[in-house]
Each structure stands twice: as C-alpha cells, then as structure tokens.
C-alpha cells in the first residue's frame, strides 16, 4: 500500500532533531535551537528536546499562552513609513501599551483573541567562549513564553546570569534599534536593521483573524526578530552597549517613548531624512582612498543584484504556493472522479491517486516554506543590511563634508583676520583670533573624526563580508538539503502502485 509518510517538517519542531552549532558558526537559526548540555568544553548535541524553540513556528503544537485580560493593542495603525532605503522603522506607540500578539502559528487557540498580550520571550543561552578570547558565541532564541531553555555554564564574565528569559514587545525591539542606530551609525558601525512594521499584518492579527495568513505573519515576525537579535549580539561593539545588555537582561524596560509615528519627534525625523537625501545629492567628495570608491561601487552592485534575486525568489515562493493549492484542488477532484467511476479497480486507483496528490501538495507547501524562510528571508535581510552599509558610507561622506566645511570656514576667518590686522580694531582682532583657534581645533577634530570613521568602516566592512560569506554558505547548504528532503519524499510518495494490482486485469 502507499507509503504513509508524513513529510517531516523542515527543521522539526518539538522533536529531537538537532544540529550542532559549530564555533563561530552562522547564527541564522532556521532550525531547532541548540540547547547546550552543561559541559562547557564542547557543544555536544543536547540531550533534551528543544522545546519548540525554533523558527518553524507553524508546526509547533504544544504551546500555550498567557492571557492578559486588558485590551492592549495600541500598536497604532497610523504607521508612517518612508520609502527611502535608509528607512528606520517608524514606531508608533500609542497611548496604551503596544503589545504584539505573537503566537507561533499552529497555535491559535481560542485564547489568542483581542485581549491577549502575547509578548516575545527570549531565552538567552550562552555558548562557550571563542578561542580568540575576545568574542563569544551567543545563542538567542525568540519563542513563546512557555518554552524555556536549559542552563549552560560558561565562564561568561559580562553577564551576571547564564541564562535569561525576558519578555519583550515588538516596539521594544524597534526602540532598541533606534537607540543603537542613533548612537553608532554615524560613527561608522553597521547596525543591523530591525524588522519592519506591517499595518496589514498587524491589523489582521489584532482583529483576531485566526487564519493561515495571520498565523504566517506572526511566525514571519518571530523569526525576523530572532535573526535581528542574533545579528545584533554578534557585533562585538554592540553587544557591549548598555542598552543591549539591558534589553537582554532586565525584566522591565522603559517604554520606547520617542518612537511614535505622528508625534513631533516622528515628523522631525521625516524632515531630517528628507534633508539628508537632498544633502547626499549635493556632496561631491574627493575620494582619496580607492578602497572606498571600490567598495561603494561593489555594494551598489550587490544591492541591485540581491534585490533582483529577492524578487525572483519571492516569485518562486508565490508560484510554489499556487502549485500546492492547485494540487490540492486536483486531488479533491480526482477523489470525486474516483467515487463516480464504476469500474472498481479504476475507482480505487483514482482514489489512491487523489491521496498521493494530497501528499504531494503538502510537500509543495513545505518546500514553499523552506523557500521562504531559508532563501527569501535571508535575501531580504541582506537587502536591508546593505542599506545600512550604504548608510554608513554616507555618514562618512557627511563627516568629510563637515570637516571640509569647517576648513573652509577657518580659511575665511583667517582672511578676515588678516584684513583686521590692518584695520586697527584690537577687540575685533582678538575675537577673530579666538575664533580661529577654536576653528583650528574643530578642523583637527574633523580630520580625526573622518579618519576614525574611515578606519571603523574598513573594519566593519571586513567583518560584514566575513559574516555574509558565512551566512550565505550555511543557508545555501541548508536550502539544498531542504530540496533534497522534498525530492526524497516525492520518490516515496509516487511508489503508490503496488506492483500489478492497481487497475487489476
């Protein structure tokens, strides 16, 4: 009889299927998170089941949520998002706490209604220190409240606890990013961008629409947040930032206040962005460093290509979903045809064909899922990351421009001063000379700033590229493995005709 095979969910949730995270391994967690066993020496495959802390939300089954009877969602619908590539998420925290109902998809119990305040819970596991000594590996899983990771003892010095679980709202993530961006972007650090808000998705979830698309949205967001956090903590400088530490550790966070969309601060941000865009066009920099010229061009190209690829992969996801739907519909039709067929053996064969096609449809769905979460989301992340990289290059330009402007100003003041020399106005002369001294200091500072940001960017780009290579390598292989799995299943499923006997005779 037909092999009754359930295609195993990609990256099983709730099952004991683990993979090792090698030292310094890519963090893009698309499978079960590793929960380390208590030995600090080597990352053995953990002995206990990863309790659903995985990105494969839709397959999780045994998660329950806490109820919060207050109605809390004011993640306002007045989200305003600019289309500029350097978009920083514009947050709208309404007057009441903004809560994101977040549930792993399979889990839309009746309790996930309008009133629930699902929040993200994160458990923080720390892996052992890297041999190089100054970096360490951290593993973060974003999951549902009930699931908690195991302890891991390390010789971690920075954090007081070895394992933390905290609850965070979506707006908290956005707030964190906003702080980091304002602190680090302008001096050349590539701050990973946070996931974007989506009005449509959120509205659906809020309205309590417990259908597949809102469930998918929730899972998509959960996965994105996890990747965002992992990227952030992988950055050696960002990890040491007090806000990051607070985010990871403290039980309560002050509300991200300055992130309202249509607030004064929000409008100001928009205006500043517009001004920036104009300025960028007018700055003509004398690039003395060929490296920057080259890299800038490289990233421009990479940006274009990645966007194109992302679009193609999104198309693929869409088509595969379509294929799945059409296969399911054909399966139903074949079943009905089988019922109608009066020749017994043929009728049976048609019914079996219907069953086979149903299984194939499930396979297509699973594959579309992998297409999306492995391939498409990686590309989307990198498109956004490259935007951040380009932003950092722009900041360097601005720094240079500021320095040059200060120099020009100094020159003007010097000319003015020399004129004043012959004008016999000792007060004004003194003033001018004071100003010149100040400006000279500023010019020096400007030059230092420029050199510093250039140096930082070089380091950052090199780190970024390393990460990029790692990321892509890992994901490519994972994706290929998902394809292999699918094809394996296809083979098994189509062995449905027991030799000889289907249509008798």
């Amino acid at each position: 009889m037909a092999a009754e095979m359930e295609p195993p969910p990609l990256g099983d949730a709730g099952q004991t299927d683990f993979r090792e995270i090698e030292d310094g391994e890519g963090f893009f967690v698309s499978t079960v998170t590793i929960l380390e066993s208590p030995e600090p020496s080597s990352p053995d495959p953990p002995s206990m089941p990863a309790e659903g802390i995985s990105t494969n939300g839709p397959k999780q089954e045994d998660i329950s949520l806490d109820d919060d009877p207050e109605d809390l969602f004011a993640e306002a619908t007045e989200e305003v998002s600019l289309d500029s590539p350097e978009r920083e998420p514009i947050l709208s925290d309404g007057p009441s706490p903004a809560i994101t109902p977040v549930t792993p998809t399979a889990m839309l119990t009746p309790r996930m209604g309008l009133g629930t305040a699902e929040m993200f819970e994160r458990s923080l596991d720390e892996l052992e220190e890297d041999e190089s000594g100054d970096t360490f590996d951290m593993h973060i899983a974003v999951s549902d409240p009930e699931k908690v990771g195991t302890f891991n003892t390390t010789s971690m010095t920075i954090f007081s606890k070895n394992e933390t679980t905290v609850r965070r709202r979506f707006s908290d993530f956005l707030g964190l990013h906003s702080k980091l961006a304002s602190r680090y972007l302008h001096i050349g650090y590539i701050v990973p961008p946070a996931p974007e808000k989506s009005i449509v998705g959120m509205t659906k979830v809020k309205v309590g629409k417990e259908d597949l698309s809102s469930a998918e949205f929730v899972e998509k967001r959960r996965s994105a947040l996890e990747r965002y956090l992992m990227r952030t903590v992988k950055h050696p400088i960002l990890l040491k930032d007090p806000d990051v530490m607070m985010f990871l550790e403290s039980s309560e966070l002050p509300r991200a206040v300055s992130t309202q969309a249509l607030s004064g601060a929000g409008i100001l941000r928009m205006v500043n962005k517009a001004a920036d865009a104009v300025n960028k066009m007018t700055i003509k920099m004398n690039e003395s460093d060929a490296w920057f010229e080259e890299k800038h061009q490289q990233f421009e190209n990479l940006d274009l290509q990645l966007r194109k690829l992302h679009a193609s992969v999104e198309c693929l996801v869409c088509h595969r979903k379509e294929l799945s739907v059409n296969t399911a519909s054909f399966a139903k039709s074949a079943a009905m045809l089988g019922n109608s067929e009066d020749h017994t053996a043929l009728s049976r064969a048609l019914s079996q064909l219907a069953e086979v096609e149903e299984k194939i449809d499930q396979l297509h769905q699973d594959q579309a899922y992998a297409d999306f979460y492995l391939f498409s989301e990686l590309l989307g992340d990198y498109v956004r990351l490259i935007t951040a990289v380009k932003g950092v290059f722009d900041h360097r330009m601005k720094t240079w421009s500021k320095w040059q402007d200060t120099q020009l100003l100094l020159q003007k003041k010097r000319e003015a001063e020399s004129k004043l020399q012959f004008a016999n106005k000792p007060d004004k002369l003194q003033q001018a000379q004071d100003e010149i001294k100040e400006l000279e200091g500023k010019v020096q500072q400007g030059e230092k700033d420029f050199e510093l940001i250039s140096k930082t960017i070089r380091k950052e780009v090199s780190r970024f590229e390393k990460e990029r290579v790692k990321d892509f390598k890992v994901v490519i292989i994972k994706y290929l493995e998902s394809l292999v799995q699918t094809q394996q299943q296809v083979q098994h499923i189509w062995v449905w005709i027991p030799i000889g006997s289907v249509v008798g005779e």
Partner: protein
Amino acid sequence: MRQEEQNGGCFQKIANIARLAAQHDDLQRCCTFIIMTSTLDDSEKEKARSVSVDLNNDASLLIDIPDALCERDKVKFTVHTKTTLSSFQKPDFSVPRQHEDFIWLHDALVETEDYAGLIIPPAPPKPDFESPREKMHKLGEGEATMTKEEYTKMKQELEAEYLAVFKKTVQVHEVFLQRLSSHPILSKDRNFQIFLEYDQDLSVRRKNAKETFGSFFKNMVKSADEVIISGIKEVDDFFEQEKTFLLDYSSKIKDSTARAEKMTRSHKNVADDYIHISATLNSLSVDDNTALKKHLEKFADLFEKLRKVEGRVASDEELKLTELFRYYMLDIQAAKDLLYRRARALADYENSNKALDKARLKSKDITQAEEHQQQCLQKFDKLSESGKRELTSFKGRRVVAFRKNLIEMSELEIKHAKNNMALLQGCIELLKSN
C-alpha cells in the same frame, strides 16, 4: 518495423533540410516548427500514443503522422498510410491535411445514419498556440529587464513549449485517425478512405456556410435533448446504469481536466522561476570576489540543471495526466452522444407506436404506420445492440489507458525525483568540500 525505420530516415532528411531553412531569417516564420516526430524513437512514440492503446496494430491499415508544418496559424499535417487492402489504390502514400479536414471527416461520420450505434471517436481539438504565443509576447516586452543569458534561456524555454504544444496536437490528430482505422466498421467508411487518399485539396468537400449553420443548429438541439436522455424511461438495466454513470462521470472528468491543467501550469511556472534565479545567481557570482564566488557559481549552475528536470516533470504530468483526462472527457462526450441517439430512436419508436394506434382507430394508412413502427423498432434494437457493445469496449479501453498512463507517470515522477536528488546531493558535496 524496417519500413518505419526507412521512413524515419527519409523524414529525418526532410527535417534536417527544414532545420537549415529555419535558420534563414526570412523563412523562419514559416518553417519554425517542423516537428521531428521522426526523431522520436519508437518507444517514445509508443508513449506518446498511450492515450488510447491498442491502436495501429493491424498491418492491413497503418496510419501515422510523421511530419507536420506550422505556418502562422495553420498546421499542415502529413498523413501517411500503409495498407494491404485492395480498396486503396496504392499500398503506401501520404497526403497533406489541415485541422479543418479532420473536423470535416468527424462530422461526416457523425451524420452518417448507419453509425448511429457507434461511439464516434472525438474530433481532435484545434491546435492552440495561444499560451506560448502570449508568453513570447510578454518576454519580448520584458527583454530590457533581463540579462542576455536570461533572455536566451527564457526564449529556449518558450520554444520548447511551442514544440510541446505542437507535439501534442500531432498526437491527438494521429490518435483520431488510428481509432478509426482500428474500428471494424469505421475503418471501411468511404469518407475515411477519401480523407486518406484523395490527393487534392479537400476543402471542396468541406462544409459550406449553409451546412455549418445546419450543424450548429443541430448541436443546439442536441444539448436540449440531453434533457431527453435523462428524462426517458429506460427499459434496459444496462443502459439505465450507463446513463447514470456517464452523466455524472462526464461532469466530474471535465472538472478534473480543468484542475489538472491548472496544476501542470503552476508546475511550469515554478520551473520558469528557476531560470531567473539561476541567471541572477550567476550575475552575483561574477561580481563576487569573496569566498562566496564558487558557491554562488555552483548554486546557479544547479538551478539551471534543476529547472530542466522540473520542466520535464511538468510536461510529463501534462501528457500523462492532463491530456489523458482531456481525451477521455471528449470520449465520454462521444459516448453520451451515442446514448442520445439511442434515446431519440426510442422516442421515435414510441411515437410511431402512438401513430400506429391512431391509424388503427381511424382505420387509415395502417400498413404504412405498421411499417414505420417496424422500422423504428429495428433501428432502436440495432442501436441498443451495437451501443451495448461499444460502451462495454469503451470501458475496457478507458481502464487500460488510465492504468498505463498512471503507471507511466508515477515511474517518470520517481525517475525525475531521483535525478533531482543526484544533482542536489552532488552540489551539496561539492560545496561542503570547498
């Protein structure tokens, strides 16, 4: 067998000449698609014909379409006959025919009173190049947005699609003729012989406007009469069952055909997406100067290979599943037509009975009425007898064809999946070892 090989060689030459001609731009439009059925080996030909099995086995009359030409909208088929029958003038000959000629033949058979008790093989559907043509148009519009390589690959894909449509249409036309030639009664039809043999243009014999209108009207009446079929009081259990079965099955298989078509089309879309992905990955790889370069290159290459396999999966599914369903949907319709004709005959018989009673009452024209009634009865009995035979053999044919196709499709699916896996695993190993 040897004859076929010789024929194959001869047509191979023609095909080669046509290929060369096609390279010349001016002629390209005309000669774009010369089907090289002759280049298919025998086993592939067999598979292509498996929609209706057990055809073309009788050496006394062998028919095939070895060649076809596509000019703009018109397809010209070369119908080749080999026969040992003396009713034909030559033992081996070919004629060019258009799709309309096939339709003429089909309609002529349908209108032949003597064949009312037979299932007339369904007419082949009109060649439909709409889908690939539209895609080609879209491709032309979008040319600017893709790289030269990508464009070339897409164009190749589309040309393959054209070819597939072409092969399909040749197949259904061929099967139509072979159904006729293997039918004990239909193979002897005079019109059939003319179709095979007449070496002039058949259009003289084809419907003129008036006749076309006549048959249109007939079709309208027929669909109204489907109500009659369901309404008529059936005396025979066999036909009662068949009627119920056919009416229900007919609508279901129509539905299945439509959905199968949607499914195979989606599959084709996925395969096409792989082309774009492969092309972009290639561009990325070219520009890349990190350790990722080789990875991207191999990844791109893999997608290119995968899409060929996926394309084959899609077209195999189409041939074995969608076309199978579509053919039997048409065949079921032909069977329904038979039931209809029999129902009409029954109605005529009942009417003639009533007329006879009336005549007896009035004592007028009794003999006439009796004769008429006898005729009707005979006709009805003949239809019933022949109909029973036809419907029974139809069921057998259907079961065998479904079985063959479903098994073949499953085998192909497995083969392609194995292929895919080999490609994928090969690539994974390469990448991991880097």
